[in-house]
């Protein structure tokens, strides 16, 4: 049974098992896209208008999708950073996260997963 809750997934090689909300916010704002050991991070998201993306922003990150978009635009067009990679659906998300080193993304809870790790979200 698919839940309407979202879970964060990472590539199975990523040496992190939990993240708190402020870390997730920083990651999905693309403020600091690298892992604690300094290895590069690749961030995947869905389209701004995808209901899954909107729920993830509001419930997990507790930001509005337009805030993330503003942050990404500021980075991309001033040369100070990058936007995340945009993904069409959960199937592509799982495939990309499982095959891209350092990847992070999110899917609905209960979607079948192979080769990716679900990250625990610490409350803070």
């Amino acid at each position, binding site marked *: 049974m698919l839940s309407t809750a979202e879970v964060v997934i990472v590539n199975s090689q990523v040496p992190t098992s939990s993240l708190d909300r402020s870390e997730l916010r*920083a990651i999905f704002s693309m403020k600091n896209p690298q892992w604690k050991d300094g290895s590069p991070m690749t961030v995947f998201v869905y389209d701004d208008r995808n209901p899954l993306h909107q729920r993830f922003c509001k419930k997990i990150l507790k930001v509005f999708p*337009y805030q993330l978009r503003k942050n990404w635009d*500021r980075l991309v067009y001033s040369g100070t950073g990058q936007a995340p990679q945009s993904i069409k659906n959960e199937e592509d998300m799982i495939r990309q996260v499982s095959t891209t080193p350092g990847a992070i993304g999110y899917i609905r809870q209960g979607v079948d997963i192979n080769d990716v790790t679900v990250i625990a979200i610490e409350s803070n």
Partner: protein
Amino acid sequence: MNFRRLWLTLLALFASCLKPAYADNADWLDRVQLHGFLTQGYINTNHNNWFGNSEDGSFDFTELGLNAWLQLTPKVSLAAQGISRRAGKMDDGSPDLDYGMISYQALNSTDTELGFRLGRIKSKIGLYNDTRDVAATRPGVFMPQSIYFDRIRNLILSVDGVSTFGALHSDIGSFYLNINVGKFRTDKNVKATFLGPLPTGSLNSDNTNIITNLLYEYDAGRIRIALSNVDYTLDFNARPDPVFSDGTIDGDYRILSGEYNTELWSFTAEYSRQPIVYRGISTVFDTLDGEAEAYYFQIARRLPNNWSSWLRYEASFRDKDDKDGSVRGPASGLEPHETFTKSWGLGARWDVTNDWMVSAEYQRNNGTFILSRIDNPGQIPTDQKWDVFSLLVSYRF
């Protein structure tokens, strides 16, 4: 700093960084990320020219940009953006390097960041300046002219020099500090704004202008408060002119900015003061010192189906102690209303898709301080009361 030399240095750095990092990896080109934007405007005014001959309806506003970004190593990135901008007689669309820089992230932990940049670096001023040419990132159809004057766009656009940036993340929010030092860019618009149409000499920035920007963000941008300071010196070389002599213009542009965002509403206000001191150029200019003052406040509302709308009031005064221009106007050969502008604007935007947007605004203006002398050469004195209708279609990727 000589820009050609700077660019060659950057290329050399690029080559030296590239080789050890990816000598055995030929696919670095695949990792270059490309983005860009294209915007076309239509402008109609009942009086005066705003980006072209707008009294007859003008399409003389086009913005085109393309940028590339490459993460060379986890700590080093390269970024450059080329731009072509048509804006009436102010900008003819010649291709230009908007930014081109190498960034080094020296320190990067969960709580703190520290880094450096070298090259042509965008100026962080207020809340919106560093992406001012990208329509989708502007708070209206055009930048609020009170704070982000297009008359002196090139001066506040970028710095050829060095930058340091730092961040501190804490439970009470994030603090960002950005300091750029270097040469500002001047052009005919900057010269006409500071010196009027008469002097034939050249106006150039010195090499040690400083832009400081301190930004506080709470709750991932729900609240944003910024303090900005632009400390600049322009050197005037009068050479062939019998009336004017060599001199300097010293300015200190200070801005306090605030933004509060909810799911449906955004409230934005920015306030600035700018003392400007003329030295030695001519006895007339020497009497023109004074502190400029400007501000705007805006309420924006996000509506269903990807529409949004905004209402803005803004005002700018060349001299905060002479807001109606009754003293300064005659003293500088201008009409009093050419030393201030007060405006109301009402606009709407529709994000048709994630990439395409359309926006339109109607603005009522009293005063012509924000108008370009270069776009209005045959119309001095300008008409005091003027309305603008503007429409943009914009694409970005």
